[in-house]
């Protein structure tokens, strides 16, 4: 297993995080250390073992579909880095 600098760059694009060259270099080395440590899981026999994503025996929790009050729009927008009227404002998406 080897995480090359190219892999780190590829993953950082998937994660939408811009990394500096220095960070890419550093992460490539450190992630290799961590993955080498994680490799030890390969020694366990997991045939017929079911996965545990969640420890509680509850799933598909539903509630009745009734309207409830929500936050006021000015409260929702008060933390926005940029807003206009009733909207969050973002850089131009469509050319």
């Amino acid at each position, binding site marked *: 297993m080897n*995480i090359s600098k190219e*892999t*780190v760059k590829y*993953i*950082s*694009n*998937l*994660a*939408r*995080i*811009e*990394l*500096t060259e220095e*960070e890419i270099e550093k*992460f490539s080395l*450190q*992630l290799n*250390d*961590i993955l080498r*440590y*994680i490799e*030890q*899981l*390969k020694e*366990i026999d*997991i045939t017929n*073992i*079911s*996965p*545990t*994503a*969640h*420890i*509680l025996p*509850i799933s598909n*929790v539903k*509630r009745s579909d009734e309207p409830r009050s929500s*936050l006021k729009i000015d*409260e*929702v927008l*008060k*933390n*926005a*880095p*940029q807003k206009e009227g009733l909207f*969050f404002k*973002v*850089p*131009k*998406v469509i050319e």
Partner: protein
Amino acid sequence: MLNTKTAHELLDLISSGEVSYEDVLVDVKSQIKKTESKIKAYAHPPNNVESVSQGSLLKGIPIAIKDNICTKEYLTTCSSHILEGFNPPYDATVIERLKEKGALIFGKTNMDEFAFGSSCETSFYGPSRNPWDLDRVPGGSSGGSAAAVASDEAIWALGSDTGGSIRQPASLCGVVGLKPTYGRVSRYGLIAFASSLDQIGPITKDVYDTALLLNIIAGHDNRDSTSINIETEDYLKCLEKDIKGLKIAIPKEYFIKGLDKEVGDSIRETRSTLEKLGASFKEVSLPHTKYAVAVYYILATAEASSNLARFDGVQYGFRERNIDKKETGPMISMYKQSRGKGFGLEAKRRIILGTYVLSSGYYDAYYLRALKVRTLIKKDFDEVFKEFDCIITPTSPTPAFKIGERLENPLSMYLSDIYTISANLSGIPAISIPCGFTKGRLPIGLQILSAPFKERDLLRTAYTFEQNTDWHKAKPKI
């Protein structure tokens, strides 16, 4: 010096009319003025208070809150640059409950950025320090909460625990910290790190306060679909000073290379104290213990990479203004550059690792395999709890380490949580209580674990030990 007291001691004093909650606030503030420049426990220190609803139970007693729990009156930033200035429009469920009972929300405590760390050093605001030795870390990620309580800059506090983030700092600072059973306390308003592992819990000066606080925050909440709808109990009633007949297991896998000698000796001494008090002991095996850290760093980073996708510079927090458009277009460039500058190193490292283990071609090898080993780790505990009421272990393999010592080697930092992570993976409750000191006067913590929703067993054990020893009464000289 009312700030040195526990919440239940203060409640008695206020009820009898000897002091008022204002007297308590004065003393807490004066302690903060005196020691906060050294400890740096707070990310957002207490505001001036104009009025308090001294409702029923808690009578205006102040509580410090970890900076990842949403509070209307205080910024909530997860000690991260990317949430700078975020002022939540709502309170977390635990905050609502505390207010209903008359608690005063009093300051937000420093933490590792997004709870990613075991030392409080990854905070955007800089590290908190251990009140017992200012050159050492308070532990993490709830290091600010533990340091505030240990230094009497807070009466008590809330933390959150994903892999040991309440218990390890409680251990390193010589206070009490409880991670409740997964599903016991609502996570609504807790900014998510790893949703299948996170729990909110108390950090206090004694076990009584932990039970008192758990009584308030525990219980079903229909805004958190993972909070379980079963009866809670009066945890104060679990505080019997008697453990005769209690069966306690000691797992041999926790007493291995890497365990500090003084910590090991202290736990063995604790065992003989508990034996004298009437508990019986047996060595057991939790055979998959050694895989817990590896499983955790796959699952926790995978969940984190998904949870932290919401920090994109659109709805709240930091946005990079001078966007270099490059080849990806203005919108995606804005995402990438805001996240690149807004997240600190450890957050980026974990998001990259989590994205990697979930990425196409690696999902089965890492994520799915880790979920299966998680099943085995949980089964180990199920087996032991068929026969035993509690398990005891050290909370941390070492006492508080030096600031900077593990920062450049992430794996060595991750191994700080080797004894605490399994409880999160299995969802079981676990508490850390003070059980000794090293020769260098650093606190040592005992971890007690019990079966899911059997907080009563670990509280009873913790309370009995505490009431027969004096470790929790020691105070640091700052």
